[in-house]
């Protein structure tokens, strides 16, 4: 059964693995300890100690904080319960006119702001751009991802959710 070194998984996360090795991993059967190694690498890289339950973006994690499961940024900023949309707690920049959209999509790439706007979600703690969504003006903020944590851990990983240490 395939299994990879922690350094290999770290290279995968960073996108620094050479393509032939990356493809060999893609073509092989999934290594069954991938998730654990992945999580432990992420855990080592953040400056805080709440156990990561699931990464949900490039900088965001669902973590166990005491009794609660909350969304947390690398920088430590907390967005509240994972069952609520973290975007509601973020700083939001809306590109809703031609000029600001053209900064990103110049010339003929610019969309019609009557039909679509770009919303940028920024961390109040570290000012990192966490997510961008494109939606028609007036459309509610999109809730990307509400995972079934219990189902994932118990049925797929075959273990119970970690608790606060």
């Amino acid at each position, binding site marked *: *059964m395939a299994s990879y070194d922690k350094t290999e998984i770290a290279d995968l996360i960073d996108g620094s693995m050479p*393509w032939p090795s990356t*493809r060999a991993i*893609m*073509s*092989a*059967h999934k290594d*069954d300890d991938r998730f654990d190694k992945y999580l432990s690498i992420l855990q080592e890289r953040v400056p805080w100690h709440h156990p990561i339950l699931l990464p949900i973006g490039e900088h965001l994690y669902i973590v166990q904080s005491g009794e609660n499961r909350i969304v947390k940024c690398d920088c430590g900023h907390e967005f509240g319960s994972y069952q609520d949309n973290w975007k509601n707690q973020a700083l939001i920049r809306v590109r809703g006119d031609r000029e600001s959209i053209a900064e990103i999509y110049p010339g003929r790439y610019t969309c019609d702001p009557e039909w679509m706007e770009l919303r940028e979600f920024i961390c109040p703690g570290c000012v990192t751009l966490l997510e961008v969504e494109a939606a028609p003006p007036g459309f509610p903020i999109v809730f990307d991802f509400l995972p079934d944590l219990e189902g994932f851990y118990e049925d797929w990983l075959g273990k119970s959710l970690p608790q606060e240490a």
Partner: protein
Amino acid sequence: MTDTLLVDEDGRFAVGKASTTPQNESVGFLESAEDAAGYWDLTSQEAFEQLSVVLYSGTGMLNTLLSRTGRRVGLIVTRGMEDAILMGRGLQAWTDYSYPDRLHAVTHQAPEPLVPRHRIYGVTERIDQFGNVVAPVYEHEAEKAAEELVAQGVEAICVCCMFSYVDDTHERQITEIVQNVLNKRDVEVPIYRSSSVRPVIREQSRLNSVVIEAYAADVSREQLVGVEEATQSQGFRYGVQTVLSYGGLAGIRYPRLHETMISGPVGGILGAKYVGDIIGSDSVIVSDMGGTSFDISAITRGNIPIENEPTLARFKLNLPTISMESIGAGAGTIIKVDPLTKKVSLGPESAGSTPGPVAFDMGGTEPTVCDCDVIMGRLNPDYFLGGKVKLNVEAAKSVFKEKVADPLGVDVYEAAEGMANMLEMDAKESMRQMISARAVDPADYALMAYGGSGPLHMAEYSRGMGFKNILTFPFAAAFSAFGCTTADYLRRYSRSVQLTLPPNADAEHRNSVAEEINRIWEGLQEAATSEMGDEGHAPADVQLEMFAQMRYTGQLEDVEVPLAMQRITADSDLDLVIKEFDELYAAINGAVAQYREAGHSITELGIVAKVEKIKPKLVRETLQGETPLAEAFKGTRSMYYNREWHEAQLWEMDYLKPGNVVAGPAVVEHPATTLVIPAGDRVWVDEWTIVHYEHAEDSSESE
């Protein structure tokens, strides 16, 4: 490793081995040659002094290409085509992938371009597909491109114009401008024109070919020159030859060296043709099972199939190549069991020779089909490569049990046989597909099985296929190398044309077609005689055979029609060309597939120029009794076959004599290959020492 195969005029051979020396290939080559000569008690000097021909093919060019360590190439193309090299062909992103990976686009990746975009310049010009000048060459653009390429310090410049296969005037004009700039700046950089690679349609393949010639092939010539100097220092009196992808030999100063880059499977099919001619079998299916792949091809009525756009290192080339179909099924093929679904898959990954199968004890950790053969007692653990590699049966068994048998919940031996059978079924299926795609009747064909693992699995992969006869060779492992020694000095020259012969064409049209055919053939003939002359062949020794790529008008695929005529001397010759095509087309596709009402198109005209070379002879001996010599018998070994253990008789291949018969269960061993004969089947040795395999009478499909 560098292998040297020393062949004498009677076809006897000795194999020498030495480590490859990539910095200077001639060192490893001489060492392995010395090793081979040692088997005949000759010094290397004595061997080289007696040799008439030395063939050398190295992997230097391919490695240069794969490792992207070739020259800094600059490229000038028709303006508007600058991105062609970056776009490539879609299939280049997945062409050597397994079926699941082909389906999953996330694994697709275009090969890294050999020329970066900033060294590609467009020049305004256009000659259309009929040869009309639509736009002249904008000379100032060509000059500027050349200046900038010089400033960028390029080591080679390629020129590729869109329709240069019709008319190369603009390519020549640009080349001249570039050369003037080079002269003015006093730099020496070789220039390569796409039309001189091979003037045929499809610019991506032509572009790839010319760039690979400049990038990887020509630059490796030094190694070949080094090898030639080394042989001559040992007393060899002639020039060293290399093997072209379509089965000819060329001296190492041959101008289009990239044509030697696909020479792997060439030898086997040449050998099969040679042996087929001797034993009177002009239709042969060849099957070569080695460590990593199973290669097959079919010689039909003496014709060797040619593929015109092969893939090399995931680049499409416009290089005629002996056509072989290949699947990733060899002894080193890795066996995987999906942990979730328990689905078994074989390859296409292979353990290769390093680390090799688990049984080699050289660090291999993944079970392979070779390990199964070891577990089942089909391979002799003490006689692999003549005993040079001790096979670790226990290691093979424990890894195979852990990774395959246990996850499947099956007995180790049963699982091992199942895996070997899967490999054999894959091999059989690929032959069956080829046979049905070409609508050939296996009863008209002899099957030749070779490669190190061919004889090991041929009993099952040929069972029930209905071939006329099934042959293998004592030297099965060296058959491809042997085949190369049967090659002649041979060149192919061809040119794209657009000629049609409608059924109701008038005399004037037919006359113009005839004139055009003669004009093209004459041009090619000139090139052929001059290039063959450069290699020291007398014009009188050069035999020419013309060919035409033809189709029924409107079709998408061509058939290559060999023609006995040297030129069209009368209108009736055109009818003869058509007749040859119709007959060949019917032989390949069946008479019902003919469509003469559509008329005929000629898409390419070519010639094959050949000078005969000295070849090893197969020795014909008188048949002896059915019972092999006593010293051929090596004892017995337990062998698992058809889910039972058998006490197999062991025989030494080299001691079997013409006329001998060996009945299964038996294993015939040779240092480089192993022939397995299950109970009920038998082999006999003919007067040429060719081994004939015969299945049991009631042998039916085991599916």
